[in-house]
């Protein structure tokens, strides 16, 4: 059985960044396994711009960002990438079984494994919409792939449910393709997308946005003929008497993303609540020794730049472990989100003697302005950071220097303090 220093499952931005980082940190034999026909992951279909400002200090399109990541690992004899290859299982002892048309079924072994499978979209079943099951109901991402990579349109007259960035981007995309976007409906009283996307993707195209509205029913037996929309109350329950119909031949769903952890769970990786991804430490190691995870498989990110940042952490420590040069941890610290912070990754710190620099990735529970992010241990504030604005849709990061982590014991909390 072929033995690798690091086996990376998923060749999207997370996997590619992890591979490059593992290489830079001394790993000599790295394998990236990608199920699609080419590397780059979902970015290849995200043809819009706005990527890379943090990570590459330059505004790039999705394929542009993917291209940068691919270029970093290309022509490096240490890194091998297999495309069109599906991983069927990962075992606790880091044996990875995969299949492709060329090699058939094969198993490789890693000194370490990094899980970077990304996330997938929630579908109609998850939102329990009434109606028949006609053609014309697609997730926004599936439609995006058809429009941007395959050359087909999902329909001509579109309604979009969900005002997250994917929904907004698709509203513009379909408009530019000559389709009529009838409406975007959002069950929350606020949009879940960036303001700049509201402006560029909706206002520029005069697309109506119905906040606090949901789709009650999909009309049409064979092909979508329309949707019934209603206002919702504070508990997100439809308000009787507010129903109205919108004619359309297509409903695009942008109703959330879920980390794709089937392989992780089957391997025995512990999944954290709220993030629905592996519980990881600051090195992005899971509860299983030598198995790391990073990117959207851990928690859904809004910026690919942060996926790359996080994957570089995983890649570095996986490479160090493979070489036997990982500093052993002597101090275990639980990380608890409190006061307006809903999720925090990592969920636990395994700190070596003298501490280690730690970067926290957090999400707020509700929109707020002018707040202070505080990391506390035993009642003492260790680190704080002023934040002019927080939104649930935008991840917050915080770097904690090694010296501060050396002061931690048992448990830290991360929370927001209002002025």
């Amino acid at each position, binding site marked *: 059985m072929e033995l690798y220093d690091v086996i990376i499952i998923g060749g999207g931005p997370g996997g590619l960044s992890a591979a490059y980082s593992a290489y830079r940190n001394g790993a000599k034999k790295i394998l990236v396994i990608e199920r699609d026909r080419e590397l780059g992951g979902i970015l290849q279909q995200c043809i819009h711009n706005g990527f890379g400002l943090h990570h590459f200090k330059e505004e790039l*399109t999705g*394929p*542009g960002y993917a*291209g940068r990541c691919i270029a970093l690992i290309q022509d490096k004899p240490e890194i091998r990438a297999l495309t069109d290859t599906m991983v069927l299982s990962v075992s606790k002892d880091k044996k990875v079984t995969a299949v492709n048309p060329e090699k058939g079924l094969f198993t490789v072994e890693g000194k370490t494994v990094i899980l970077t499978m990304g996330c997938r979209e929630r579908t109609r079943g998850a939102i329990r919409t009434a109606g028949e099951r006609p053609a014309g109901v697609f997730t926004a991402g599936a439609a995006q792939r058809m429009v*941007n990579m*395959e*050359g087909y349109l999902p329909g001509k007259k579109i309604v979009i449910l969900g005002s997250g960035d994917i929904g907004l981007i698709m509203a513009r995309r379909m408009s530019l393709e000559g389709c009529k976007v009838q409406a975007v409906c959002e069950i929350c009283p606020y949009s879940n997308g960036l303001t700049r996307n509201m402006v560029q993707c909706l206002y*520029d195209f005069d697309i109506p946005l119905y906040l606090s509205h949901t789709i009650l029913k999909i009309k049409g037996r064979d092909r979508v003929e329309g949707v019934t929309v209603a206002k919702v109350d504070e508990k997100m329950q439809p308000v009787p008497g507010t129903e109205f119909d919108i004619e359309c031949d297509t409903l695009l769903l942008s109703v959330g993303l879920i980390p794709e952890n089937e392989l992780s769970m089957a391997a025995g990786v512990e999944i954290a609540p709220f993030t629905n991804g592996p519980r990881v430490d600051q090195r992005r190691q899971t509860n299983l020794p030598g198995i790391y995870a990073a990117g959207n498989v851990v928690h859904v990110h809004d910026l690919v730049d942060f996926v790359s940042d996080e994957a570089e952490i995983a890649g570095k420590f996986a490479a160090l472990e493979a070489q036997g040069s990982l500093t052993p941890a002597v101090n275990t610290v639980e990380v608890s989100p409190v006061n307006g912070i809903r999720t925090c990754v990592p969920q636990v710190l395994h700190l070596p003697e003298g501490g280690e620099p730690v970067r926290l990735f957090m999400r707020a529970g509700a929109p707020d302005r002018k707040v202070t992010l505080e990391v506390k241990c035993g009642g003492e504030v260790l680190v704080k950071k002023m934040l*002019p604005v927080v939104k649930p849709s935008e991840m917050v990061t915080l770097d904690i220097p090694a010296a501060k982590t050396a002061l931690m014991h048992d448990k830290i909390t991360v929370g927001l303090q209002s002025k």
Partner: protein
Amino acid sequence: MNCIMCPMGCEMTVTLENGRFAGVTGNSCPRGAKYAETEVTDPRRMLTTTVRIKGGLLPLLPVVSAEVLPKGKVADCAAYLRNVTVEAPVQAGDVIVPDILGLGVDIVASRDMEKVND
């Protein structure tokens, strides 16, 4: 208006005098002020779309405007690009359509697309 220069999305108020930009409040940085002025005088947007490609791995090639285009011309440019076909191979950054619709902006490839033998 809402600023779109960064994720903060500042709520700004623009003052016009005789249809001309006369000042802005509510912005948090100079970039916001610049955006506000351009937005009322000559609003511009980036365009990303696809053109058809022959002989490549995919039937479509993603493209991007090298700079911002006049907002009112974005849809026209997209419609124009729907009828453009190129041949693989293409490199990221290759000019696909120079000076689109005489607007002085090039349309360039967003990615490499190698030639594949079918």
